[in-house]
């Protein structure tokens, strides 16, 4: 027997393996990133011999896992909510076609949002695709629901969505588990082109079948009613993490006059719910982040409150403090108002010693008037240095650069230098097709691939360039060759920490690009500092400030922005915060008064 404190994501991984998944694939993205590594850990720990690997993007991960389910295997695919947008295409079709084994699509939502572009609700996407969705309220439930999802999937031959939210994914709880048993699945591919390759006429029939499945499935939808008092006329309906907040809130408020109905599966709604709600007068629906249950309830009863009636805010996380306020106001329960939360949170910055800082510094130095499209990763934080002008979605920087170029060119306007930045992992994810499109459409700009050899933001997952798999060594997919293959003729590989070399190279590339109407690429290659620090032979360069030379010009602290270089207002000098300095030594190049010295 093992007893451990597990993250919600880890508990889900446990459930997936206990449920018998033989193929698990994922693309990292906060707050979903910890599921796959833990599945890999358990896979090795119990020598389970399952396939547990990262894919280059969510669509690839989905399609791979789905084929296994067609062949009778049990699959799981894991992504964050905006990742589901990338995998939406295969998901919509898979709903119609169905499967043989089982497949659970684990999607982690990010109400807030804390680390995402949108607050989209995957339960809504499930309703759109007509797929059942389970919504756990705790890590332990995440584990149970993973197994339940596989069962439902197998029984109805339909993919099932397991929707997590950041408080479940990144919440932790004590969890007990036994050794995970080995499995022996009957993998075979039964040819059936009418099903697996259905033409539109058959898709219509499959749609009928899907509608029937969803109807039947609704009856299996489990729910629990927490009754505090038989005479209660007040009811809250909820699902997922909100349930946990609501139970703790009612306790905090010493309130026993409100019952709570929790739906394990917010879509499709169980018909029995219509009977339950008739026993209550005041009904409030609390759910994150869209009115999924609310829309379905309206079929049975329209005097309910929630997001559609403006009681629940239309945006933002339903944190526990908000829930305490909403519940107490709606059901008229007395409580002492919280003080205003008006303290300032410190905003995130690139780490001390991060090589991206050098790249961005070179870019703003080389082209102070440039346009800088960028993308998603740690390097989005180049915003702080005014070196990131756009951030849309994975891979967009390249086509956006292309669009800016054609916007100016089509109207015969002078074209400002356009420098697009993208991380290596993002490039493999969706940059490659974008680059092909831009080459094909005759764009001209400089593309800087910030190649730090890892997916740093989400916890250092390997990229195809390294060829590293969970199970050992795969095949390397070299970055430079891929770029060459997309039709780029001018490619430079350099270390961005040589700032002057990078500045010269940028200028030369832009000259080339405007003159020849072609894209040029710089691969700024230097490992992520946090990875370098893990190495035994990391060379820490100890620097110091020569106070006689420091003029207090603040270039290093305000333009270069290493968080370890701090301007002292009183003394009008910069000092080094040795508790955070990572000893990269790059700042020495930034001070033109030579006040930063190597010790």
């Amino acid at each position, binding site marked *: 027997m093992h*007893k*451990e*404190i597990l993250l919600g994501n880890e508990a889900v991984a446990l459930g997936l393996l206990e449920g018998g998944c033989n193929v698990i694939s994922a693309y990292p993205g*906060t*707050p979903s990133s910890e599921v796959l590594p833990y599945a890999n850990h358990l896979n090795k720990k119990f020598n389970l011999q399952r396939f547990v690997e990262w894919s280059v993007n969510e669509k690839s991960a989905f399609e791979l896992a789905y084929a296994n389910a067609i062949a009778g295997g049990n699959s799981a695919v894991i992504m964050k909510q905006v990742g589901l947008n990338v995998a939406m295409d295969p998901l919509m079709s898979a709903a119609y076609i169905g499967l043989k084994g089982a497949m659970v699509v684990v999607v982690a939502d990010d109400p807030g949002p*804390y*680390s995402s572009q949108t607050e989209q609700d995957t339960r809504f996407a499930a309703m759109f695709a007509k797929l059942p969705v389970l919504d756990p*309220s*705790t890590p332990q439930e995440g584990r149970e629901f993973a197994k339940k999802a596989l069962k439902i999937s197998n029984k109805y031959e339909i993919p099932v969505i397991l929707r997590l939210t950041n*408080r479940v994914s*990144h*919440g*932790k*709880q*004590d969890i007990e588990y036994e050794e995970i048993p080995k499995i022996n699945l009957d993998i075979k591919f039964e040819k059936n082109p009418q099903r697996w390759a259905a033409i539109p006429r058959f898709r219509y029939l499959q749609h009928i079948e899907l509608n029937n499945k969803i109807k039947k499935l609704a009856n299996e939808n489990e729910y629990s009613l927490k009754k505090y008092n038989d005479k209660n006329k007040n009811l809250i309906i909820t699902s997922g*993490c909100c*349930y*946990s*907040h609501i*139970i*703790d*809130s009612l306790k*905090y408020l010493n309130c026993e006059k409100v019952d709570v109905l929790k739906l394990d599966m917010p879509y499709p709604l169980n018909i029995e719910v219509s009977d339950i709600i008739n026993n209550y007068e005041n009904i409030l629906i609390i759910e994150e982040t869209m009115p999924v249950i609310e829309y379905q309830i309206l079929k049975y009863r329209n005097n309910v409150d929630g997001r559609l009636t403006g009681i629940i805010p239309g945006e933002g996380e339903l*944190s*526990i*403090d908000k829930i*305490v306020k909403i519940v107490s106001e709606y059901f008229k329960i007395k409580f002492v108002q*919280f*003080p205003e*939360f008006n*303290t300032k*949170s*410190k*905003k*995130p*910055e*690139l*780490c001390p010693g991060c090589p991206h800082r050098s790249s961005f510094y070179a870019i703003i130095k080389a082209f102070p008037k440039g346009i800088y499209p960028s993308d998603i990763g*740690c390097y989005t*934080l180049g915003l702080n240095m005014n070196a990131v002008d756009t951030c849309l979605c994975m891979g967009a920087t390249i086509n956006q650069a292309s669009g800016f170029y054609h916007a100016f060119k089509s109207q015969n306007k002078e074209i400002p230098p356009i420098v697009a930045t993208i991380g290596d992992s993002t490039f493999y994810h969706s940059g490659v097709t974008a680059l092909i499109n831009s080459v094909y459409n005759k764009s001209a700009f400089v593309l800087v691939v910030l190649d730090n050899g890892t997916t740093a*933001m*989400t916890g250092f997952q390997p990229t195809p360039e390294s060829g590293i798999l969970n199970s050992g060594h795969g095949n390397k997919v070299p970055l430079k060759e891929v770029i060459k293959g997309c039709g780029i003729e001018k490619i430079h590989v350099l270390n961005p920490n040589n700032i002057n070399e990078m500045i010269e190279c940028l200028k030369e590339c832009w000259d080339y690009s405007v003159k020849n109407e072609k894209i040029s690429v710089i691969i700024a290659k230097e490992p992520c500092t946090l990875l370098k620090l893990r190495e035994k032979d990391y060379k820490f360069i100890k620097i110091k400030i020569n106070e006689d030379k420091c003029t207090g010009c603040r270039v290093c602290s305000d333009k270069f922005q290493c*968080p370890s270089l701090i301007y002292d207002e009183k003394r009008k000098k910069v000092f080094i915060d*040795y*508790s*955070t300095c990572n000893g990269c030594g790059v700042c020495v190049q930034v001070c033109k008064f030579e006040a930063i010295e190597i010790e």
Partner: protein
Amino acid sequence: MNKQIIINGVGGQGVIFLSQILSKVTLNKGFKIKVAETLGMARRGGSVISFLKIGDYNSPMIIPKDGDILICLHENELDNGLYYLKENGKIYLNSNKYFDATQVALKHNNPKMTNVIFLGYITKDRDFPFSYEEIIEVLPEKSKNYFDIGYHESKSN
């Protein structure tokens, strides 16, 4: 035991590490626990906060002004932590006004051990719910020494 603990600071200070250590101790003591930690983007130098709810709870989030203990690793982040602490809650603040774990860590040439030194220091306090033995048992080998340093520093303060 029902206890709600807040740990906060800025990214890179080891807030999450402390939260993991105290969670393990709780587990060993046989209590139920719910934890919420900041992960992702904010950990790159931003404000980081962690909640530990020991005992009979469902949600991992602490209600404002309801927490029992605050462990704050950075003075600038104190207000963020206080928002969740009860009026008569216990505060442990790493600061040069009281006990400056950052300086002690620098003195021992290992600034990254600030968090462990501070943990050692506050373990000495009578109101702190975990004991020296309970904590040292779950600390990784390389941290134990620094935990001791903090624990013994407190005598001279």
